[in-house]
């Protein structure tokens, strides 16, 4: 491993020479500068792990050098050397970001420990920067697939809004990827090193939404055996993502409005006021303006949430993205399912592009998954897709015909194969009882394996 590099800046030659010799015995690479100007010159050529800077120098003093160094190298580790009577300056230096200071002459023990500690700190800072770089290299948009003008516009807006701390409302039909967009906004924002905390408001009963958001004290309600932090607290410093915001009750709307105004709240059953700092992103598939007009959603809350609106386009408005998305899901699911699907046959792709996809990207993903369950690698074929074929087409998508019975027969067969003949599971997915399913198997002469 390379030995650490140290830059000693002092106008006294004897100090520079002594420290060069002393640090040299440790094997450190020592450079010296007799003035602040000379030090800046050296810094422009190469970085140093630690700088030891005398505070009192003619011309540019140590404080000025510290300031200019930190402008150029914000994570520079600078130790200030002070003489008797200049401790006040040293305190100023600490306020300006110096790592520490030592009083001349130094006790060798103190100097050795201080430099060791500074180098350790430098190592941790460097490691931290490296980790952050690695994290940044993981694209925030990797999971968002699409090259259509609609998606490019949306991603451009995501990038722009991410840099701000504005509240974002994401609207779009179910299955259009609203949570992915919320995560992309967070991942590209300055808060990205803190958590994004999602809450699905639609999935929780009203009383639970409150407890989820605000947390509760022990004994706040029956079953509250322990104090529990709410999502608002967990999102402190990061992003709170409230999905299905259109579903929250009038009471929760009032509570949420208060939190957004005051940035403070109390846990259920508690009195302690907890201050929080988070960015809020909400999402809904509902028309919130209409709900406001109907009196089902508070107007003041709507305005609070609707600072920046991002609209996720439905898949039918960006059919050009369907091949990309289908390939993406095929590759992803191939890895997950350990089934080597490598291509989508042209007829199948045509079928995918013609389908209106009312369930959007989520429905497309499910369709690809089903085709991979019932089909045989390496190709996804039209007949394996759970979407109707083109009217008057060649029957590629529906080899059994297009009558209701034919469609039902094929659909049940597909579900049976998906569940490897397990009638209970297949019946559950088909939302019929097992007896009905047995009757249909018999009626259509279906295979269970």
């Amino acid at each position: 491993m390379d030995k650490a590099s140290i830059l000693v800046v002092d106008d006294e030659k004897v100090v520079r020479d002594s420290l060069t010799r002393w640090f040299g015995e440790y094997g450190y690479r020592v450079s010296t500068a007799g003035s602040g100007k000379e030090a800046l010159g050296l810094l422009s050529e190469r970085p140093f792990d630690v700088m030891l800077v005398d505070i009192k120098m003619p011309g540019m003093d140590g404080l000025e050098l510290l300031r200019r160094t930190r402008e150029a190298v914000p994570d520079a580790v600078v130790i200030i050397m002070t003489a008797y009577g200049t401790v006040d300056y040293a305190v100023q230096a600490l306020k300006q970001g110096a790592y520490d200071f030592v009083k001349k002459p130094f006790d060798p023990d103190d100097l050795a420990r201080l430099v060791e500690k500074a180098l350790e700190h430098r190592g941790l800072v460097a490691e931290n920067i490296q980790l952050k770089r690695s994290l940044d290299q993981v694209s925030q948009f990797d999971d968002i697939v699409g090259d259509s003008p609609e998606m490019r516009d949306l991603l451009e807006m995501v990038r722009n809004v991410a840099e701000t701390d504005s509240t974002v409302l994401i609207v779009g039909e179910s299955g259009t990827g609203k949570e992915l967009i919320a995560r992309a906004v967070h991942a590209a924002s300055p808060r990205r090193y803190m958590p994004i905390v999602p809450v699905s408001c639609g999935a929780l009963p009203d009383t639970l939404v409150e407890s989820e958001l605000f947390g509760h004290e022990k004994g706040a309600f029956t079953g509250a055996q322990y104090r529990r932090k709410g999502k608002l607290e967990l999102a402190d410093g990061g992003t709170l993502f409230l999905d299905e915001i259109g579903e929250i009750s009038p009471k929760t709307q009032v509570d949420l409005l208060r939190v957004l105004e005051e940035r403070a709240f109390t846990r259920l059953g508690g009195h302690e006021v907890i201050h929080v700092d988070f960015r809020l992103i909400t999402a809904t598939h509902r028309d919130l303006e209409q709900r406001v007009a109907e009196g089902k959603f508070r107007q003041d809350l709507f305005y609070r949430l609707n600072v920046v609106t991002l609209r996720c386009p439905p898949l039918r408005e960006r059919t050009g993205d369907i091949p990309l998305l289908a390939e993406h899901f095929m590759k992803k699911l191939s890895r997950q399912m350990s089934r080597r699907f490598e291509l989508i046959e042209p007829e199948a792709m045509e079928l995918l592009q013609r389908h209106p996809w009312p369930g959007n990207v989520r429905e497309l993903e499910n369709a690809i998954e089903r085709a991979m369950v019932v089909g045989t690698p390496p190709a996804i074929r039209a007949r394996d897709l759970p979407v109707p074929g083109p009217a008057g087409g060649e029957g590629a998508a529906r080899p059994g015909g297009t009558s209701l019975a034919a469609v039902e027969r094929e659909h049940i067969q597909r579900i049976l194969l998906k569940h490897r003949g397990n009638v209970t599971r297949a019946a559950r997915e088909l939302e019929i009882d097992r007896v009905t399913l047995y009757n249909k198997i018999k009626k259509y002469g279906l295979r269970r394996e």
Partner: protein
Amino acid sequence: MPRLTLVTAGPLGRGYLERLAWRLSTVLPHAVIVAGAPLNLSPAWDPERGQYHSTRILELLARGETGEEGSRTLGVVGEDLFVPILTFVFGEALLGGPAAVFSPVRLSPTFYGLPRNKDLLLERSLKEALHELGHTFGLYHCPRDCVMRASANADEVDLKPARFCEACARALPA
């Protein structure tokens, strides 16, 4: 056989020097001799600090060196040493050069108000002498269990052994 010349200055016991010379000869491949004339330290005296500037002493010692391959001069100075930026030093060496110096003053338990302990003083002196001589053979501080490990106080001197680790020993003359 390379020579190691101990040049003395300041108040040092004859018995201490002889025992130190003998212990050094058991560790190093050198013929260890004690120079007859003591070094004149006055050019290294700093009246403001009330200490002797070790770098100046090194310059004086290097001047008297013969330059014989592998031979070294070690100043053993019974006075407190310093370099301008540090409150004190146990010793100093010319890295990869012909001379080194150390002081037993702060190695003695009596410096810290403790009872005299000749054996401990000798053990610490041996370690510091070997350490500074190690620098003259181009060795840096060593993180291993080795006499070249850095020690900024007497306790740390006690913690390291009076021998070179395998890697550092390779730098010594055969």
